[in-house]
């Protein structure tokens, strides 16, 4: 008689790989934005790699769902874990989307705007990193979650401030860009900052699930 379906290790590994893929996608997001702004030739490689990690993340997410439901693992928390994993998926999606949009739409960014663009991408990536770390803590060591959640909220508010500064620079600065062009840049600012918004969304979900995971 087989009492347990010993798929636990497999699920654990899938979760780790999934989070690794998302983390890598977010790192490539920042590197990609940086390369785009510097007009670096590595940019297309970053776009490709980021899309590849996002694809891998989707694959791992599919496996996680299958193993969780097929073998009925962690039944009391499976719904929470799946929701958390699902909402994390947006980190990979948005990372890929920004780079693909940059590649396809090729927006012209003026030199004086680049540092702020770079900073937004950098802090957005940091927020994603902090929230992924928080998810790892949720899965392994509940005690340390709060520190990561605080970081995410802080980074998100920093990105909001930078976003506002950059918008002011675009619309009120010396730039002689056409209004349509300014709107286009505005759209990209929003896109880059979306990663921190997603991270905040994951953090909010995590802060609720943190209480539900108690014994």
């Amino acid at each position, binding site marked *: 008689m087989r*009492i*347990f379906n010993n798929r*636990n290790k497999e699920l654990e590994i899938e*979760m780790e790989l999934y989070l690794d893929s998302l983390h890598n996608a977010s790192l490539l997001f920042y590197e990609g934005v940086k390369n785009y702004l510097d007009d670096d030739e590595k940019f297309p490689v970053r776009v490709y790699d980021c899309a590849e990690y996002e694809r891998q993340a989707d694959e791992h997410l599919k496996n996680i769902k299958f193993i969780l439901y097929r073998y009925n*693992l*962690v039944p*009391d928390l499976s719904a929470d874990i799946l929701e958390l994993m699902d909402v994390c998926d947006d980190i990979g999606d948005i990372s890929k989307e920004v780079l693909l949009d940059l590649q396809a739409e090729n927006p012209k960014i003026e030199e004086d705007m680049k540092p702020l663009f770079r900073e937004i991408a950098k802090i957005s990536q940091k927020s994603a990193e902090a929230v992924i770390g928080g998810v790892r803590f949720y899965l392994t060591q509940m*005690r340390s979650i709060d520190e990561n959640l605080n970081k995410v909220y802080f980074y998100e508010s920093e990105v909001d401030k930078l976003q506002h500064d950059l918008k002011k620079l675009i619309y009120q600065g010396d730039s002689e860009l056409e209004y349509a062009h300014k709107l286009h840049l505005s759209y990209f600012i929003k896109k880059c900052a979306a990663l921190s918004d997603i991270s905040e969304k994951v953090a909010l979900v995590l802060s609720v699930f943190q209480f539900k995971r*108690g*014994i």
Partner: protein
Amino acid sequence: MGGLNTSLIFLSAGLFMGWSLGANDAANIFGTAVGTKMIKFRTAAIIASVFVVIGATFSGSGASQSLGELGKINALAGAFTVSASAAITVTYMTSKGLSVSTSQAIVGAIMGWNIFSGYKTNPEVIYKIAGTWVFAPILSAIFAIILYLIIRAFLANIKIHVVTLDQYTRYALVIVGAFGAYSLGANNISNVMGLYIDVSPFKSISLVGNLTLSSTQILFFIGGLSVALGICTYSGRVMKTVGSGILKMSPISAFISVLATSLVLFLFSNESLREFLLSRNLPAFPLVPVSQSQVLIGAILGIGIAKGNKNINYRQLGGIGLGWILTPIMSMVISYVALAVMQNVFMFEVYK
């Protein structure tokens, strides 16, 4: 053969009690684990059945001594009537949604026999048993609080993946479930078969090696089988209700509550432990059948207190208190009336 058949008919009341015990009380052990799908019902039923029979056969005599001290029922028809009265009380009170314990029903029914037969009830035994009913849920709550705080501190300080923890929790639930079933069999079998000890129709038998089953052990083995039958045939439905409805607990809380309950039942039924404590001049627990459901409620309240939950359901506590008084009284009255009917209408010898 005819005598044995008659004996078996008279045992039927006890066997019904056993079936009822298995159907209801096994859910207290494996309810959350099965209801939350941590363990399959089939696995739970097999483990519970095996260990309840082992507990009943090899450790069941301890708690039955107290029932023997309360009243020595010396006629098979009397034992049947007392057991059936307790069973009727349990069934009626359960149907009315009242907190009921087979232990309390049996004690009340024995007192009914004592009054009917003129057997003098020893008040000290009554105090001992009644005191245990109050003390056992409190002890269980204390155990649950201690266990909860230890496990919470332990889990807060170790790094363990939620999936691995889930796997360990499943192992723990199976182990503690086996222990719970063993303790249930050891402590509560006296409610099922304890009344028949002095009128047992069985003789001792020798098994392989030096293993001998005494007449009482055979009786308890058969009683254990009836409990197992209750587990296999009816407890599944109750388990699913417990796990998904009335008592919503996390698997780890379920583990704590079952462990606390099992420890209490074990303490009140283990003769070796009692002898060990007494030999060292330490206070020992009386060997008394206690209500597993009420001990479990004590454990759940203990977890609630440890969690800092101030919303204690006093209505539920009141229900237990009411059960302490109502169940024995009702059972005593039914037993007295039934014994009178058995003796005077059906002309059975209900006492010697």
